[in-house]
């Protein structure tokens, strides 16, 4: 199915910055010191990056970050222990073969997760879906939240829903005294969320479910101007609220996979 895109094109390259830094450091060390040291620095960088990915996995419980962490760790070891480079001499060829086989297997796993969009932060999909049936209308923006309706759920169901949205990178939960606030995170915004979650939350759109069934929506100016044209702000807020209420209904019925299907059906790219 074809859906017209209502969000502006994203040309942010934040997600590639760590890889570019790694390559630049490796290249610089190679040029200034030598080949072996260049490879060691890349190897060390990958091991550190594996730790960082594992930390994101702990925060989000998203399986693709576990796969990325494993791949980065194995790649770091692969560079450091491969007989051709002699960085860390290992006499036992079985260990090298073992690392190689596991590296190939984790590469396949990682590719599968990336291409099935499990590794994708789906904030952009959320905003595209909310805007599908929204008509253009100027000067509608206001900074206050909008009550989006009521729905039924228990506190446990809401907590489970929060874990589901987080582990699928749909919206990141913020647990408050009387509610859970979900902030959709777009691809390339993830580092902002990971490093400074409280600061990230300010001036972002959110959907809140309180513990008595009320749903409230707030769309930030930053996200609103991310649309190509001025959409009816009231409709947009209402649709975003309805979207999450629908997600909650799917989750309660045990049909959470439909949420993923709905978001992926939009056919947005893997890196934006």
């Amino acid at each position: 199915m074809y859906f017209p895109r209502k969000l502006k094109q994203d040309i942010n390259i934040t997600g590639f910055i760590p890889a570019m830094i790694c390559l630049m450091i490796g290249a610089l060390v190679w040029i200034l010191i030598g080949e072996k040291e260049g490879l060691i620095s890349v190897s060390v960088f990958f091991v550190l990056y594996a730790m960082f990915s594992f930390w994101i996995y702990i925060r989000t419980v998203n399986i693709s970050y576990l796969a990325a962490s494993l791949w980065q760790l194995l790649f770091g070891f692969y560079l450091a222990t491969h007989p051709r480079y002699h960085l860390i001499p290992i006499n036992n060829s079985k260990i090298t073969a073992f690392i190689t086989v596991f590296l190939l297997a984790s590469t396949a796993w990682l590719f599968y997760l990336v291409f099935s969009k499990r590794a994708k932060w789906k904030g952009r999909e959320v905003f595209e879906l909310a805007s599908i049936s929204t008509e253009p209308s100027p000067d509608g923006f206001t900074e206050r939240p909008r009550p989006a309706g009521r729905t039924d759920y228990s506190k446990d169901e809401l907590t489970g829903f929060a874990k589901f949205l987080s582990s699928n990178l749909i919206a990141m939960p913020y647990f408050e005294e009387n509610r859970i606030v979900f902030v959709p995170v777009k691809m390339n915004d993830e580092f902002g969320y990971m490093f400074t979650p409280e600061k990230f939350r300010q001036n972002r759109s959110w959907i809140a479910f309180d513990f008595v069934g009320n749903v409230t929506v707030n769309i930030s100016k930053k996200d609103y101007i991310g649309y190509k044209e001025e959409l009816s702000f009231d409709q947009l807020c209402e649709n975003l609220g309805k979207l999450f209420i629908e997600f909650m209904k799917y989750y309660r019925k045990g049909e959470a996979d439909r949420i993923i299907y709905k978001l992926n059906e939009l056919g947005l790219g893997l890196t934006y």
Partner: protein
Amino acid sequence: MDFKEAAKLGSCLSKDYAEDLFRLLVTYKSISSSEAASRLDLHIKTVQDFLEDMHSLKILDREEVYEGKRPYFRYWLKTDHITMSIDLTSFSHDEEVNDTRLKLKIREKRNAGVKFTTSRSNDYISNVTIWMGEGRNRTERKINLSIPQGKFLFHLPFPNADYLSIKEIMRKAQVDNDNIPEIIDIVNVLVELGVIETLKLSVR
């Protein structure tokens, strides 16, 4: 006595010299402002203003006299007692809240230049900040809201949403009918400040 008169009387009575002046007025059959001022060692203008205020409040009577010089007033007490009674119910809205006022359809005005701050519990608006004027003359006005008012504004339709009647918004916000006067009050203030717009009904 209306509130303005009561305020004037209260202000006069609160002066340090008020008791001494009344003592003179009780003692003397009639007294001029210069006599009272010299007797109490006060500035003549101070005494003159006080006596004129008392006269305007119908507590003193006066007579213009001529004694070969320019005319002046002599004052004497018109009453032995001062009673202050203010009807506070007069501050309530002019008319009883009726169906017509609750049927007024409203929504937030486009580009109102206003900031709504939500409460800690995030289920009502705690205050509204309105910026008025331009450039250096830009001023900020913050209105703190009662909880019913905050709940009401939390459910106020957005600028391009359909208008809703006050009654409808109150129902959605679950605001009690006892709070109608304060809701009407905040709606009137925000309409005046250009934050809320009302639906103009065409009369045929």
